[in-house]
């Protein structure tokens, strides 16, 4: 059997007295969407940060395609195949959509450190950029400044940028947050189609989206995994219902 795309092995992380990640082990295999759910403050984002490299675990190992990446920097991990969309929109707001995508395209080609090659008016980069935007259906708005975009469109752009590097693993931190029902549906459709090309670790509070998308679900409470299984198993799990799903209507 080939090794999973992502494998966490006994990952621990504490902030002073707070145990934010408590002995978490999980994996993401090719072709699956693995959802990570849990109440606010459960440590979902903290876990993603450790996979991404902006935080280091105190102990435990993180493997990407079987390679230990636990102590690599963020850019190195990204170049090894990790793409991330953040909980709070994280795009280049001073630029147009097309320019965002061009900057991502030249980084992907490892040509960002070029002093005498044009960027925004280079035909082949523009072509690449349009392919990147097309993946989320945004080509018609390529020339709009990101700061003038609606929230939902920024989320789509961020997803497009995360995919631009053709990562084997996508970390999506609440991509539907703040989106209306229609936008959520659109986003769900797009993410669903991505599983063929990227392993996906998805954090999401919108349970409709989670059950529509996830192949497997891991439930995190106070930093620890309390349940793990297929969508069907998790929706029936009494501990999960009590710890998390039951509080859904009041908490979120």
């Amino acid at each position, binding site marked *: 059997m080939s090794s999973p795309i992502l494998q966490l092995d006994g990952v621990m992380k504490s902030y002073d007295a707070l145990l934010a990640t408590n002995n978490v082990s999980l994996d993401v295999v090719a072709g699956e969407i693995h959802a990570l759910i849990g109440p606010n403050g459960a440590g979902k984002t903290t876990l993603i940060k450790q996979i991404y490299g902006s935080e280091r675990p105190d102990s435990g190992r993180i493997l990407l395609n079987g390679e230990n990446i636990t102590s690599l920097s963020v850019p190195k991990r990204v170049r090894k195949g990790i793409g991330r969309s953040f909980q709070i929109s994280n795009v280049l707001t001073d630029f147009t959509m097309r320019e965002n995508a061009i900057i991502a395209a*030249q*980084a992907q080609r490892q040509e960002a450190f070029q002093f*005498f090659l044009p960027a925004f008016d280079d035909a082949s980069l523009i072509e690449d950029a349009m392919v990147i935007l097309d993946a989320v259906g945004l080509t018609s708005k390529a020339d709009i400044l990101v700061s003038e975009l609606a929230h939902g469109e920024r989320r789509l752009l961020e997803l497009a940028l995360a995919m631009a590097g053709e990562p084997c693993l996508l970390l999506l931190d609440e991509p539907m947050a703040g989106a209306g029902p229609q936008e959520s549906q659109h986003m769900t459709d797009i993410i669903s189609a991505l599983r063929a090309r990227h392993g996906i670790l998805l954090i999401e509070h919108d349970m409709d989206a989670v059950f529509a998308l996830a192949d497997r679900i891991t439930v995190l409470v106070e930093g620890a995994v309390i349940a793990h299984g297929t969508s069907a198993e998790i929706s029936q799990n009494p501990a999960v219902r009590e710890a998390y799903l039951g509080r859904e209507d009041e908490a979120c």
Partner: protein
Amino acid sequence: MTRFFSLIGRGLLQHRAMMYLLVGFALFPLYTGFADLPFWNDVAIRIMLLGMAAMGLNLVLGYGGMVSFGHAAFFGIGAYCVGISSYYDIFNGWIHIGFSLVTCGLMGVIIGLLSLRTSGIYFIMITLAFAQMLFFAFVSLETFGGDDGMSIDRAEFGLIDLYEPLRLYFLVWAALVIVSLLLMFIVHSRFGVTLRAIKSNESRVEAMGLTPLKFKITAYVISAMICGLAGTLFASWQEYVSPDIMHWTRSGELMIIIILGGLGTLAGPLLGAIAFLLLEEFLPELIQAIAPDYAENWMIVFGPILIAIVMFGRGGLLGLLIKLFQRKGAS
């Protein structure tokens, strides 16, 4: 290669203001020649050199979003490269320039590596601290004149005798053209675009698999070398160098020039230098004529004028000019 030239062509069109200014500086001596105002050539040289230093700083400040409060140090190091060389009887200007570029490049790497790991107010303070350190180092270096500074001979550039009127002027002008073209390339290149992206949102650039620090240090070093070149030519023109050339107020002056002209634009710093030095030149006389009692405190008027332009003319003078011409074009 063709892409390289198409970049020049498009760059020039995009930067018409820059072209007009450079052509203007080239033709200016014709005017001062006919009108017999040689003094104004010196003012123009000062403007071009401070403008060049501001353009260098602008790469870091305007395009990279790094608020370096110590760039006068590089200007000063460039100037002292002439002083120190002359002290050891080296008068060749090309050697001065080489010495300056290498020294400022190295200092840029060192200061950059140490300061660019911080950001915000810490970065401002660390860059200021390095500049102050260098300032006091030169104050205490008695060999090179200490506090009083040292007078120096103008450099020799082979057949170009800088004591010949206008030779120095056009040497400075040529350097300004080269720096302008270089910056034009950099700003529109993939590197430049990435640098601007880092200013906009560093963590997204990191998420693209790039190391922002690498880009920031490179920009910092280039900007240090440009400031150094300006300082080197400045020392040769002034025939004198003292620690005052790298006083922290000059770092502030360079920042004001940039904001006045247009932060993060190519022509802005040069335009800002013109406005700044003309105000500095004329304001005292103007106030002397209007209200002689206040003539000594002309800075009190200078300050608010600067603040007003910075606050109300978003985009600086260049922004104002562009708006003006667009309105004309529209009507």
